[in-house]
């Protein structure tokens, strides 16, 4: 089966939901194309709202719609959604507790060579710091589908970050272990625990395969639910390993690595090494080139693990 990007899966799930429930609405800020939401706009035009290039408005309008019974999904590039409209996310969505689902598309360094203005390497830190905001970074299309279906069932705020391009599957079709707000343990081992989120889960799983060939057994935890963080899964994985590696497409501060370190530090002290983007504008290139350069790939993760065990 042809792979599709996670954002496109979200759109597909929402179209099906929107056909059944007219209160499911999608909003874009001149971003329907980049969000892969054009099919929603075409199929359900009465349930689609265009705000133009105005991300603050996108979020506030979503909050107003939610207050009147709608179930809005606001899709806009993660870089703008999480920082340009941060205050609207904080006040109108989280603080006012409106049922708005914020879909940050083309997250992390998806936009590659477009530069730091288009990278969202702060969104995990920013969104996690807001009370009542949940933060999800699904790892592949199959998990994205299940997550989106779960989110349709609740009426609470959430921020979901997905990348721009299709990524390799982590799970098998028809066999996707998934429990809402519980991390998924992809592989289990005793030497090293690798805790990753979003599109860094796949290279982490591949790293575990490399390590296995070298006689090192790794646990890989897919922490798609960065907030509420599954602390039990962290403690369990860390307790059973000699050291912990976190992997995230995010700045080195305030993201998954920081959060995991807090938990491990207080619950089961052990060395935690964070693999993340640098605290600097990243080198110019496609996202793959960027990941390879900073060793945020299977080989890089495996190399770090070998140094630790």
């Amino acid at each position: 089966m042809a792979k599709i990007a996670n954002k496109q899966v979200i759109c597909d799930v929402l179209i099906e939901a929107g056909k059944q429930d007219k209160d499911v609405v999608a909003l874009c800020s001149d971003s329907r194309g980049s969000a892969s939401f054009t099919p929603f706009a075409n199929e359900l035009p009465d349930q689609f709202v265009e705000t133009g290039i105005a991300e603050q408005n996108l979020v506030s309008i979503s909050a107003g719609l939610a207050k009147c019974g709608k179930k809005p999904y606001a899709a806009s590039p993660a870089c703008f959604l999480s920082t340009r409209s941060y205050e609207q996310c904080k006040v109108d969505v989280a603080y006012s507790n409106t049922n708005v689902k914020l879909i940050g598309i083309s997250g992390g360094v998806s936009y590659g060579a477009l530069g730091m203005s288009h990278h969202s390497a702060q969104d995990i830190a920013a969104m996690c710091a807001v009370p009542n905001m949940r933060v999800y970074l699904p790892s592949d299309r199959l998990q994205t589908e299940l997550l989106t279906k779960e989110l349709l069932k609740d009426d609470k705020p959430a921020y979901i970050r997905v990348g721009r391009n299709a990524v390799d599957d982590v799970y098998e079709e028809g066999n996707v272990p998934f429990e809402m707000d519980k991390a998924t343990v992809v592989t289990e081992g005793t030497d090293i625990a690798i805790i990753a989120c979003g599109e860094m889960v796949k290279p982490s799983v591949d790293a575990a395969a490399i390590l296995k060939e070298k006689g090192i057994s790794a646990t890989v935890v897919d922490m798609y639910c960065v907030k509420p963080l599954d602390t039990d899964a962290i403690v369990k994985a860390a307790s059973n390993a000699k050291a912990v590696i976190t992997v995230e497409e995010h700045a080195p501060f305030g993201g998954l690595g920081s959060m995991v370190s807090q938990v491990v530090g207080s619950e089961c002290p052990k060395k935690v090494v964070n693999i993340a983007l640098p605290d600097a504008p990243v080198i110019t290139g496609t996202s793959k080139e960027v990941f390879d350069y900073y060793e945020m790939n299977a080989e890089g993760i495996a190399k770090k693990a070998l140094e630790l065990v």
Partner: protein
Amino acid sequence: MENLKALAYELRENVIDMIVEGKAGHIGGDMSVMEILTEIYFDQMNISPENMDDPDRDKFIMSKGHSVEAYYAVLAAKGFFDIRDVIAQFSKFGSKFIGHPNNKLPGIEMNSGSLGHGLPVSVGMALAGKMDKKDYRVYTVMGDGEIAEGSVWEGAMAASHYGLDNLCAVVDRNRLQISGNTEDVMAHDDLHERWKSFGWNVIDVADGNDIDQLKAAFDAAKEVKGKPTVLIANTVKGKGSSVMENKANWHHKVPNAEELEQIKKDLKAGKEAALHG
């Protein structure tokens, strides 16, 4: 119908009590906005503690959230909570009556305080009404200093784009903000033209502290189809007492004993004039 002019003066007294007891409050804007809120809540809107769960009732967002004391006084008078509780607890440790609107309190839709949010949120509410073919109306009140926020104009743009004639915004044009005269801080004396150029129906209310003029303007707004309406309500900051009127330093201030005596005296006289004048 109640004498809303007298009620507005009575509610001003509640605000003063709140601010004196709580030792804080945005007193000047509370006074300027009082007739606007009174007219909206006691004449224009179909809203009460009993119909809050009715999806067809009218909606209101207090965008200039710092005038929360005036808002509390009006909501209490509508029966959403007891004014004695507000006066006793406002701004105190652990109080639910905090210094900006929050929707954990009955009657309040959205948490505000950061300026420039009320209009865009109101656009979403009005859009939902259009999508569901409902007849409710959405009201929001902004300060004149507030409209320097860019997000106001994002909301203004979308409201006219979507032809939201079920939306009525009010600018409390009291011409003063914390640093002084609005025209010195960031000029926008061409407000009428600005809103008009954004595709809005604009109604200038010569005296925004006059209930009759406000009523006429809100009633006229209901008749306009295909575009949102904004009322530019020319008000007096600190309205009701010579101690406070048109003085920028009364943006956020607690009166001393002497000032308090004069303010109370002036407000009582204002109420008497409304009742018998």
